[in-house]
């Protein structure tokens, strides 16, 4: 087998679209499988319009060892041999390809829609009878285990708490969960389709609402795309403020998650304190830009709000104060045996499973994987200012909680360090027009993990395709695996320990 090289790029670097090699389908398949087996992870695998009504498949293999993104493509007919049997992390991507582009990955072990959205293109894979034709999430066949003592539990889309809609189908034996299947798509609002033809005045707002709790992360990924396409360099001060914004987002969400985990095991002190402290972090973001979610702060070319000396001082002081309260609140968790008894050994994901599924973010690092975009594919301020990677080995709820706590401390330290040495100068430049016929991939370590955006421009420099991969897209299957052989009553706790985004997945 000969392996042809793909197009190699750094994170946030653009190249002519024509430089992406178009391989034969077997070469493409072998190439992707081989790269993933030799240590790369599949950052994206998606379809786009090719010539003559065909579909182009593009794979972005992220090589953590040398920080390179390798891009391969192929133009299959209406069917091709699925990658998933040899590369489990392609599972969700190939279902998406089948649903959006009516191209059938033959031999896929569980071919069903992931969003229940209308196909972009008519073809063999959609429309006909079978599970691909289902019109609503939840109204479809689910994986079933037969047996006299087996029972099925269905939950959602409307849940008990104030959370997003999703449908969960458990196959149980008594209290014990054999299998959990997750059906999403209720939040599908057509964002990727609407991005084609951009950038427009609405584009950045669509980015900030891909997942509202990751407004800064997604806006940063989009910023890197536009900056690469227009060849503009973000001023150092702008990069530093973007780093501060991203870490503030992480602080708020991680703190909220630790509180929610405490709530789910009935430990109310930490639940109450962290609920308040999450808001204090959001208010720090609002201090900087007016919005608790960082809306309007990150823009292509830099940031739209600077930090004057007085504001920077206030941020530092308040951050140190909030961090002290978070330390006190979180410390109670580790010192309370009733909490630790519920956290430890619950919802374990083995390291090999995490690797096979291609998990990202704290969920991956809690299984011992040292996967972190800020370390592996640093862009923006991160080549200059390092954040140590936080990992734990046990893969359980405790590990996912403890990794968050380590990251809280390191993010706070990172912000305080940066505030002491903020570069002088402007915070934003005008990015100018986007170049024609280019491809660019942009990775950002959002608080849930790796965010991947891939853009391709047409002859006028407009988006001919724009792919968004939210960290949740990689991780939902991890939650399903964590539930295997667990009591069903531990589902809320396991779910919270992943805290995945429905809207970020559904797009």
């Amino acid at each position, binding site marked *: 087998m000969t392996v042809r090289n793909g197009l190699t790029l750094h994170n946030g670097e653009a190249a002519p679209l024509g430089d992406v090699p178009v391989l034969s389908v077997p070469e493409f398949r072998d190439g992707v499988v081989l790269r993933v087996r030799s240590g790369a992870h599949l950052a994206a695998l998606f379809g786009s319009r090719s010539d003559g009504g065909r579909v182009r498949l593009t794979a972005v293999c992220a090589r953590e060892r040398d920080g390179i993104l390798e891009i391969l493509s192929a133009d299959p007919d209406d069917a091709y041999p699925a990658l998933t049997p040899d590369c489990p992390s392609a599972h969700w991507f190939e279902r998406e390809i089948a649903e959006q582009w009516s191209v059938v990955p033959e031999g896929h072990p569980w071919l069903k829609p992931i969003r*229940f959205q209308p196909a972009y293109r008519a073809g063999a894979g959609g429309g006909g009878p079978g599970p691909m034709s289902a019109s609503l999430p939840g109204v479809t066949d689910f994986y079933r285990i037969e047996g006299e003592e087996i029972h099925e539990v269905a939950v959602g889309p409307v849940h008990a708490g104030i959370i997003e809609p999703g449908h969960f189908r458990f196959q149980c034996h008594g209290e014990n969960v054999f299998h959990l299947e997750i059906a999403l798509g209720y939040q*599908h609002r057509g964002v990727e389709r609407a991005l084609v033809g951009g950038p427009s005045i609405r584009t950045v*707002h669509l980015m900030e609402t891909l997942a*509202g709790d990751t407004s800064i992360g997604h806006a940063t990924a989009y910023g890197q795309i536009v900056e690469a396409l227009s060849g503009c360099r973000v001023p150092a001060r702008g990069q530093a403020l973007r780093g501060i914004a991203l870490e503030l987002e992480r602080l708020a969400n991680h703190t909220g998650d630790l509180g929610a985990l405490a709530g789910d095991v009935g430990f109310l002190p930490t639940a109450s304190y962290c609920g308040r402290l999450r808001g204090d972090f959001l208010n720090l973001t609002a201090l900087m830009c007016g*919005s*608790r979610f960082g809306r309007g702060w990150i823009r292509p070319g830099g940031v739209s709000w600077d930090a004057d000396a007085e504001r920077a001082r206030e941020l530092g002081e308040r951050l140190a104060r909030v961090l002290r309260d978070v330390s006190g609140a979180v410390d109670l968790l580790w010192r309370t045996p009733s909490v630790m008894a519920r956290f430890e050994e619950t919802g374990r994901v083995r390291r090999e499973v995490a690797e096979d599924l291609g998990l990202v973010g704290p969920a991956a690092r809690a299984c011992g994987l040292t996967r972190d975009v800020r370390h592996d594919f640093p862009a923006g301020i991160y080549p200059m200012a390092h954040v140590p990677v936080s990992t734990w080995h046990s893969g359980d709820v405790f590990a996912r909680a403890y990794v968050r706590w380590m990251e809280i401390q390191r993010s706070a330290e990172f912000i305080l360090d940066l505030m002491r040495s903020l570069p002088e100068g402007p915070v934003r430049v005008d990015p100018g027009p986007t170049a024609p016929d280019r491809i660019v991939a942009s990775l950002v370590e959002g608080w849930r993990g790796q965010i991947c955006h891939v853009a391709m421009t047409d002859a006028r420099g407009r988006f001919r395709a724009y792919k968004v991969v939210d960290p949740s897209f990689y991780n939902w299957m991890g939650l399903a695996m964590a539930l295997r052989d667990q009591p069903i009553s531990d589902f809320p706790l396991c779910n919270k320990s992943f805290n995945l985004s429905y809207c970020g997945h559904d797009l």
Partner: protein
Amino acid sequence: MLRVLLERLRQGHRTAGYPAQEPALPDRYRGRPEIRAGACPEPCRACLQVCPTGALSREGSGVRLDVARCLFCGACEAACSGGVVRLTREYRMAARSREGLVLGGGDAQRTAQAVHEQARRLFGRSLKLREVSAGGCNACEADVNVLNTLVFDLGRFGVQFVASPRHADGLLITGPVSANMELALRKSYEAVPAPKIVIAVGACALSGGPFAGHPEVRGGADSVLPVDLYIPGCPPHPYTILDGILRLLGRLPS
């Protein structure tokens, strides 16, 4: 146990003084827009051209702004050389009708009319709401959720979010209503015993927000159900939501 108690003392009392005390909002907060009437020179369309959701339109010698569509990005204010459009720091924005959210053309926003007589009588001292998230970005949900934290302590107003629509007096809806959530939303509404109220929260639920016009979504909550209270924002500040709910119930001085 001793450690838990010591930490409790250290964390202190954090519930805000609202409504007796006005909330402290950051200086860069972007709240209710304001339109200076009749001051636009022809043929200026500067604000219209930069608005991401088409919330602005020309009306005679001025502009009209549909706050239901507004994302509060401030692009209009930055584009307006005449100081006609401005985002104030006013957080109170809820209205009883969609028309009550259209600014300019001489009308003042009818925030003060937010009281719902029947809601006040029936639910003024106890309101149970079921939240339905229907296609948004989860930011509105997040800032509805914080009303349950000890800072806002929603329970002290007799308002509570409940687990089932059958236990509720009404729905609080976020999101533009995605096609995939329409059925579940309708079923949730039907499951709420009458008389019932509907509160729409956020630009999406009011108008489709940044997703307005996408074929994958409906045009907000009132394209599917009757809505009694509209709370604008993208997302609204928690105090905007709290103010809206309390105003609907006649719990705030007008």
